[in-house]
């Protein structure tokens, strides 16, 4: 009952993956800062990069930029490119000035960019040095959000992976939940697990540095986001064990995800059913409403966030859609595998991108709904395709039972709008 039934024709785990290399129409990992800084309330993200990096953050963050955000860019200037030693002095000065102005900052992330990586500014060493200078009040870490190394949500992965080596040690048997979720969703998740009697839980990232997130050989961890490849590896290096599960999207995904944790902690079936029955029913009802507009429709995913595979699983199994192509920037078998097992065979699974060739495929397939980035959405709408812009799926609360209806709603809205507009008649 609680275990999702694999599709009769087999899943997609062993399906051949189309791997193409060419122009990629994706964000770089710096964009992760935009939601991470909201989650980690005492952290500041300092990008060491160029004017392009600052312009990207400004364009992606939209109006958020005006709300005194806890991020900024130390823009490299011509003089910085001349000598490396200079760059470190410059960085020390800018950081000191920043921390003086914002004494509430407890964690500072030096975020590498393409320019800083290419000229090899040693931000790891800078982070160590600055940690010593500003200890114990401020901890300074570093990771790279550069486009040459990271795609969009991988920025969060790189950030969390940079925190794993400095997490406190523990030998306690604890559950570590990994991935930044909106607070409201995080609270729902903790309540569900708490009702099952699982309360030895830690979060990565925690909302504040003083929250005691620890890791050790008796830690088991579950991922709430599928883009956690490096963090997954870093936690395993610290001796923790991964609980593989489908991602908690929709009724089935959420139930399977909770089920995997419940099994690990020996929660009795009766308890599990008692805790999940009511929210499951609510989720099913809400999904059914939105799914009316989705049933029988085809969908095509451009690669963007690594959420594509679990979302395709939800939309095909619970909303009655047919997937034509499911593109993901990267596919990790250990993480995406459980969702691929459940995704009915049929769609082309693709990893990486050659955007012009992929556009040729979407034009040939003419899907009912195309999930893509904002650089492609309006041009495809103008060609008569209906699109759902993908970035919203990262910012909006979409995980777990209570959001399942909203999640389906995000996909049905463009289709409903297409039906509601009578623009041809008015001309």
């Amino acid at each position: 009952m609680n275990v999702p039934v694999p599709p009769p024709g087999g899943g997609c785990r062993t399906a051949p993956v189309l791997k193409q290399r060419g122009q990629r129409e994706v964000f770089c990992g710096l964009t992760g800062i935009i939601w991470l800084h909201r989650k980690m309330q005492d952290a500041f993200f300092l990008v060491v990069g160029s004017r392009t990096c600052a312009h990207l953050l400004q364009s992606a963050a939209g109006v958020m930029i005006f709300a005194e955000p806890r991020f900024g860019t130390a823009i490299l200037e011509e003089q910085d490119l001349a000598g490396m030693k200079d760059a470190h002095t410059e960085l020390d000065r800018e950081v000191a000035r920043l921390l003086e102005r914002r004494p509430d900052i407890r964690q500072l992330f030096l975020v590498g960019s393409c320019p800083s990586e290419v000229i090899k500014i040693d931000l790891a060493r800078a982070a160590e040095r600055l940690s010593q200078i500003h200890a114990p009040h401020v901890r300074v870490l570093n990771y790279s959000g550069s486009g040459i190394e990271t795609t969009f949500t991988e920025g969060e992965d790189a950030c969390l992976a940079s925190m794993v080596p400095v997490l406190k040690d523990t030998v306690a048997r604890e559950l570590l939940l990994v991935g930044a979720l909106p607070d409201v969703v995080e609270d729902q998740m903790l309540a569900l697990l708490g009702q099952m009697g699982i309360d030895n839980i830690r979060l990565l990232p925690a909302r504040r540095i003083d929250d005691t997130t620890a890791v050790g050989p008796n830690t088991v961890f579950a991922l709430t986001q599928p883009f956690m490849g490096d963090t997954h590896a870093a936690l395993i290096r610290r001796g923790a064990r991964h609980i593989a599960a489908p991602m908690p999207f929709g009724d089935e995904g959420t139930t399977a995800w909770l089920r995997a944790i419940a099994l690990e902690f020996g929660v009795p079936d009766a308890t599990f059913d008692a805790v999940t029955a009511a929210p499951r029913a609510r989720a099913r009802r809400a999904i059914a409403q939105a799914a009316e507009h989705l049933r029988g429709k085809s969908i095509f995913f451009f690669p963007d966030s690594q959420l594509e595979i679990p979302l395709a699983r939800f939309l095909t199994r619970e909303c009655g859609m047919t997937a034509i192509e499911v593109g993901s920037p990267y596919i990790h078998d250990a993480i995406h595998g459980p969702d691929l097992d459940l995704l009915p065979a049929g769609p082309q699974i693709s990893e990486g991108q050659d955007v012009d060739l992929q556009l040729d495929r979407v034009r040939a397939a003419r899907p009912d709904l195309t999930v893509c980035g904002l650089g492609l959405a309006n041009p495809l709408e103008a060609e008569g395709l209906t699109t759902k812009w993908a970035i919203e799926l990262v910012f909006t609360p979409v995980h777990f039972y209570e959001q399942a209806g909203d999640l389906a709603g995000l996909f049905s809205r463009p289709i409903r709008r297409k039906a509601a507009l009578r623009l041809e008649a008015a001309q």
Partner: protein
Amino acid sequence: MKLTVWTYEGPPHVGAMRVATAMTGLHYVLHAPQGDTYADLLFTMIERRNHRPPVSYTTFQARDLGSDTAGLFKKAAQDAVDRFNPQAIIVGASCTAELIQDDPAGLAETMGLSIPVIALELPSYSRKENYGADETFYQIVRHLAQPCDRTGRITCNLLGPTALGFRNRDDVEELTGLLSDLGVDVNVTAPLGATPADIARLPAAHFNVLMYPETGEAAARWLEKTFDQPYTKNVPIGVAATRAFVAEVQALTGSTAPADESRLRLPWWSASVDSTYLTGKRVFLFGDGTHVCAMARMARDEMGFEVAGLGCYNREQARAVRACAKEMGVEALITDDYLEVEETIAALAPEMIMGTQMERHIGKRLGIPCAVISAPVHVQDYPARYSPVMGYEGANVLFDTLVHPLVMGLEEHLLTMFRDDFEFHDAAGPSHHGGHAPVA
């Protein structure tokens, strides 16, 4: 290093994209890392374009470094030419590619492409977006313009409008109409809407209208020097500036046909008694140099405002802006640091700000009304309706734009007069919300 949150201008390759996206039949091959494609959404979302910008990115990744990024560039260039069949391509590097020194210009030249290849040198660590646009347009003109006979009728080129320009679409339409009144046809508008073939016949025009010095001045100067085409110095924003522009065009062409002022309403609207309360309203102006200078004169002479201060973020226009400030008897603020702008505004405490979207937010924070007069702007300032700022309709548009953020005259009068009235005092609340219901 300089810590920044907000930037008024993007990097110079975004300026090059603004030129490429403005044109048709031209393709931009940009050597840039994965992620730089973010700039596409400025055009598809903010300007709401219905096609992808004509830009191919090499999107190199870490694993490509040290192996063959030069090969990637050549492949991207060849693919772009094969797929999009452009009349010409421009090639260049973004900030990161500038560091790996692959030399897109040299690489593209060795490929033996059958179309013109225009190489761009855009120093990312010292220059910005407007320079990128101006330099790119200049290089395109320099490479493609061909000597040709002047047109039989008197024609001019409109120089400077680009993609992502503030109200450029409608300014072009307004000036085209105005010039038509004066008996002048437009030979080519560029870069907005032009093809490389159109650029080739720029020299057929009798003179050039330099609409936006920020993005068209280098090309205008070169055309003047090379093809003896004079260019206009008046930017026709506001009634007086438009009339000066008309006189300038008449002097250049010998035309005596009058401009049609029958739909110009600003002078009467501004003279009418309802506008009396505008007198001496203290305004602060900030934006690009061209819009700030033109609108400062317009605000003072045609709206009756007092200019409390002004400035610009683009150093290229610093000289003009300082001269304008001197004329207004105020100090010019030349900075690209919005915190400095905020400090200045707070210190001057104007009654209205005329600025960019950043000043709109500063105004919100300080409780000062703001009208947007310059890029950078957000999606709402690429309106569906016709909204030029140049020419006579532009003057009408500006009157409305500058009055709307202010409390209306009669309303202000009544509110002041009856402020202490038991029914009208600030805490009473509007009557239609039941603010006067008897106390239970």
